[in-house]
């Protein structure tokens, strides 16, 4: 008989739920902790896996549908993995007035993706975000990794490309 098990290499790996056991234990009896739990979960996995939603539901006694409602309401939460470097390009007023759209276009072009996507090599995820609060350095972007977050500005399309190339080089991914 034909084997119908999915052999797709990109199948979502099973989530190691032991990683959030401590978080669930700490917050399970504190009312109103759902957002905090989701934030901790996202810090651990880089996103919120479906399996984790079910585990949170069980521990906190909140229906999965309601948890999904909260996740999708807030811009911060993600349901799919992101790249190693998260590029958050500011679309605040001061940045807009100082032509942030040109910077955003250069970043999309340099990475070969549009906002909300991740590069195929898994190095970069590019997102447009609301104000980062560094308005006098507009236009700015924040680059976040698991270890740190750094703000860059004032950017030009050229300097934005250079920053990305610098990271690529440091990651050993520059084959040119």
């Amino acid at each position: 008989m034909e084997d119908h098990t999915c052999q797709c290499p990109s199948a979502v790996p099973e989530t190691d739920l032991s990683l959030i056991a401590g978080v669930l234990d700490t917050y399970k009896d504190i009312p109103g902790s759902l957002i905090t739990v989701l934030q901790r979960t996202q810090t651990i996995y880089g996103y919120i896996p479906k399996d984790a939603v079910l585990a949170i539901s069980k521990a906190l006694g909140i229906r999965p549908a309601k948890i999904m409602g909260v996740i999708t309401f807030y811009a911060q939460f993600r349901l799919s993995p992101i790249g190693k470097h998260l590029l958050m390009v500011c679309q605040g007023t001061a940045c807009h007035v100082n032509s942030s759209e040109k910077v955003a276009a250069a970043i999309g072009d340099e990475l070969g993706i549009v906002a909300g996507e991740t590069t195929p090599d898994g190095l970069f995820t590019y997102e447009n975000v609301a104000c980062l609060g560094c308005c006098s350095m507009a236009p700015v972007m924040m680059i976040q990794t698991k270890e740190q977050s750094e703000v860059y500005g004032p950017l030009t399309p050229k300097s934005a490309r250079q920053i990305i190339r610098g990271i690529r080089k440091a990651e050993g991914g520059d084959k040119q």
Partner: protein
Amino acid sequence: MRFTVGMGSCGIAAGAQKTLDALKKALGERSSDIPVGQVGCIGMCFNEPIVEVITDTEHYYYSKVNEEMAEEIVASHLKDGLPAESYLIPEEDMDFLKKQTRVALRNCGVIDPEKIESYRERGGYEAITKVLKTMSPAEVVGEVKISGLRGRGGAGFPTWFKWDAAAKSEGDEKYVICNADEGDPGAFMDRSLLEGDPHAVMEGMMIAAYAIGAAKGVFYVRAEYPLAIKRLEKAIKQARTAGFLGEHILGTDFSFDLEIKAGAGAFVCGEETALIASLEGERGMPRLKPPFPAQKGYWQKPSNINNVETYGNIPWIFREGGEAFAAMGTENSKGTKVFALAGKVKRGGLAEVPMGMTIREIIYDIGGGIKDDKALKGVQMGGPSGGCIPERLIDTPVDYENITAAGAIMGSGGMIVMDETTCMVDMARFFMDFTQKESCGKCVHCRIGTKRMLEILDRIVNGEGRDGDIELLEELGRGIIDGSLCGLGQSAPNPALSTIAQFREEYDAHIRDKKCPAHKCKPLLTYAIDPEKCTGCNACAKKCPAEAIHGEKKKPHEIDAAFCVKCGSCESACRFGAVLVD
């Protein structure tokens, strides 16, 4: 002698960490007796990274200090005992500070925000000590009333009134909440205050807690402000160790503790009932008021919610007296207000001024005027909830009533300066795009109305505007204002309505003439070459990505409009000003 480096988010973005490391390295062995400390943002963001050298007699400020400059500055002070003149912040830039009156920002850029001792040296925690030892809760509310302080987050509601209502509400448990969900794109005073002087905001909350009878306080901080959260966490720990948080503070019956909850990225959570829903782990959707949070707030208990800057003013008011605060400002708007100056202004940053100063003074005397000396077109105040004040009204004094009369709102104090190259229709579209995305979806008018308004603005900036679009925008705007529950919806149409009121001719130009006077809206632009000025150098043709420019060498070139993608490369490539944009 000691050194300090501005280590706010903006300073760090400009490379302050490298500067600080370079200073320490240059000082070498001397760093044991010449400390290098970190301070928050002094507000002169345009000069970051800023290094201050404090000697027994003088303060020297250095601007845009990189690693090499740091070495030279250290050498100059150590060897010659003289400042490195050429790197000092120019005298006229110091006007940025001199024209200010700093109350809320009194410690920002002065103290080390990660050291409680640094705060206490500047009189920190004296106010709560005085309050606990000598005043009754009712007297505290009375003092705030004398000060005339109004909410700094947007609506300008009298602070004492909120405190009084929460104090009079019956309840075994009460809460004080700090709204640090600074969502207005273009405002960053709350970030700066939390990063630069976290203890002051905490002390303000303690005083509020004593006044209303609360034992617990919560910070609701935007997730986009990780440094502010980190510094608050440190400050709370230090205050607990020092005995300013916990049981029986300073040996009195007053017990109080604080926790931090990070927001998750939703602008509507700046609205107080939405904020409470979010604190409780729910979708941040506003609800009908009454009951007000002062009656039924966090967990249905009486709660007092104020903005960061409001709390930041409180310790000063109790140290210097409510009357001293009320002595500043105008009749109905007392004290000072912090403005976040950004956009097309020469010196962008945070400026705190007495209420009643004119917009012109803030932009020109403090901000140094318009970038590249272009012409001022207007100032957006109040962000996506506010409006645009046109150039002809910039002698308006800044206070709650006058700003409202001029067609904007005070809001949290964001001041975005716009020049002749800013398209007002594009700005209206920008804000509508923002509020449309941030609408929580509860009220139909806000959810769908903002979408329809955005679609209309989209077609106008794309050159597909129709007759009657302006009237349609106005009609939808009125509907959204009437049909929305919370401040987000009720104010969402403001940027569009205020630009229609003040800059209607720009809308007409887009819709009727298919022209963008500010040359911002790409689909409406045409590029051409002035044959009189063109030298035929071919520079533009080389840069053109669409190969739309043709011509013989040393003869005037031409742009083929059918192929032009309106990228503007030719305009920036031309050294003779021969590319005409219309």
